[in-house]
């Protein structure tokens, strides 16, 4: 059984410890707590160099030191503290860095509220387990045979057919019924590829509908989107070796993943506010009565500084937008401001939790909105790489990784 070491503060008093353990159990893992002696704590804090006042944070540091010194056996690390606690946020992030510098263990950080449910942690826990247990699958760099990948996302469903390391068919649609949407895009992708379902040797499915689709199609690979998307992104960007950061601003949540040779070693997955996701850009384009495909081009012609939108919330963000339009600002400036607002929030809320590595590869449907890519580039000081077919990362990853089962 995979052992996930929990370094935490406040979980037992927030009614969430049970949910954390439930999430781990549901992906075949077990939460463990590195044991430390009383004498270890002060020594570990001295060595770490940051001395928090809260004893539980000091205990977290001592537990991390046990992992760093290989005195406690674990396969992955989950670092979690209360949302809105400044002292804990500092320790959480620095401990994540400490673990990465001193171990090879995959690590994920999370700040919880009392409303945390196991389902919210499922993808993160599953990704930790995948990284540990499927190293051989994740090491695959070339697709072989004839395989299909389906990405059942919150906003769109994508299907893609690959043969001998080439994309030969693809399609996407807005997500409706999980099976119907997937069947429709798969049929269109197969039609473009000129193949029939019975010829497909393996299939990989990912995204929110992966379990349903996995059963329906008898997929050989049913895997969370963090690891699958990473593989798809580095394959599309031809960056299978070395380091990179993959940024996927999705319809419902955002993922920022650091990879080394195509394998993720740290990730954040945010979904606190729609104001920092692709959904906000959808709302903006509806208000501007334009297609979302045109929003990016419009934004590229505008200047966000002329129409500031500073809201963290999509509802208030739209209020800002209405006010700005009422003031007579141009659609171009408003579109640019909306893109800048999303990019800034992704930076503030998520990219602070990982050490950004270069290059930055921006993927997912929102990477087709050029104004958003421009805004991300401005905020990060480096224009991201957007590979061709960047919206198909999950489907490419599914087709690529499933060929490992042939």
């Amino acid at each position, binding site marked *: 059984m995979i052992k996930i070491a929990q370094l935490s*503060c406040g979980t037992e*008093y927030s009614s969430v410890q049970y949910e954390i353990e439930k999430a781990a159990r549901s992906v075949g893992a077990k939460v463990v707590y590195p044991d430390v002696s009383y004498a270890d704590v002060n020594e570990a804090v001295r060595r770490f160099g940051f001395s928090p006042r*809260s004893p539980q944070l000091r*205990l977290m540091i001592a537990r991390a030191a046990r992992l760093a010194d290989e005195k406690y056996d674990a396969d992955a690390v989950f670092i979690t503290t209360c*949302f809105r*606690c400044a002292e804990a946020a500092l320790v959480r992030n620095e401990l994540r860095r400490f673990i990465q510098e001193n171990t090879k263990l995959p690590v994920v950080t999370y700040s*919880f509220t*009392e*409303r945390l449910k196991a389902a919210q942690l499922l993808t993160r826990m599953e990704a930790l387990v995948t990284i540990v247990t499927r190293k051989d699958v994740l090491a695959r760099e070339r697709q072989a045979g004839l395989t299909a990948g389906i990405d059942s996302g919150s906003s769109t469903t994508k299907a893609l057919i690959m043969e001998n390391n080439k994309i030969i068919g693809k399609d996407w649609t807005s997500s409706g019924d999980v099976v119907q949407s997937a069947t429709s895009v798969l049929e269109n992708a197969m039609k473009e590829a000129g193949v029939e379902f019975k010829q497909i040797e393996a299939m990989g499915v990912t995204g929110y509908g992966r379990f349903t689709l996995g059963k329906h199609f008898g997929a050989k690979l049913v895997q969370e989107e963090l690891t699958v998307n990473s593989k798809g992104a580095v394959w599309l960007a031809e960056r299978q070796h070395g380091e990179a950061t993959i940024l996927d601003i999705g319809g419902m949540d955002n993922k920022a993943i650091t990879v080394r040779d195509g394998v993720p070693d740290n990730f954040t997955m945010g979904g606190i506010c729609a104001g920092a996701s692709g959904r906000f850009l959808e709302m903006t384009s509806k208000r501007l009565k334009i297609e979302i495909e045109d929003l990016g081009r419009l934004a590229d012609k505008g200047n966000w500084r002329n129409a500031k939108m500073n809201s963290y919330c999509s509802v208030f963000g739209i209020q800002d937008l209405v006010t700005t339009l009422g003031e007579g600002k141009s659609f171009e400036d408003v579109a640019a401001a909306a893109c800048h607002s999303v990019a800034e929030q992704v930076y503030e809320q998520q990219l602070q939790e990982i050490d950004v590595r270069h290059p930055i590869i921006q993927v997912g449907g929102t990477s087709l909105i050029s104004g958003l890519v421009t805004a991300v580039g401005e905020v990060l000081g480096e224009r991201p790489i957007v590979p061709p077919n960047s919206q198909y990362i999950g489907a490419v990853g599914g087709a690529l990784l499933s060929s490992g089962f042939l």
Partner: protein
Amino acid sequence: MKIFISPPNSLILFDLVERFGHEPLGAMAAIQERIDNIELDMPPMNVTLDDVIGGLKYAGVEVPSGIRGRLSLWGPLIDTADAAIIVEDPPFSFGCVGCERSDEMVKYMLHRRGIPVISVKYPENSEEAKAAVGRIKEFLEGLK
């Protein structure tokens, strides 16, 4: 009389209060009640979502859930306490609630209630320990 102890999970303080004929109010009782009477299955502290929401009585929603969860346990005890003993800066082995901010809030709530409170510095040696126990004894006897 009902005496709130801080740290609330200090076994030594709990014992001292009982020895001098008072009823100690601490973590053990609050958690035991959840195990025995409500039969909650949320180990290790049996704090539930309703408890954390109940903690809003003592701290606003912007306060981290871990603090509100703690205050939902200690708060009702503080509300009913007749007096309190606070040991300042103890090591974890003496008793600890894990969170500095919760600890500060508990002390503030005790002082705000205006009940008799004694603050004793954690002793560093046996002489100081004898003196600290002596002060606590005197305080508890004085309450009778």
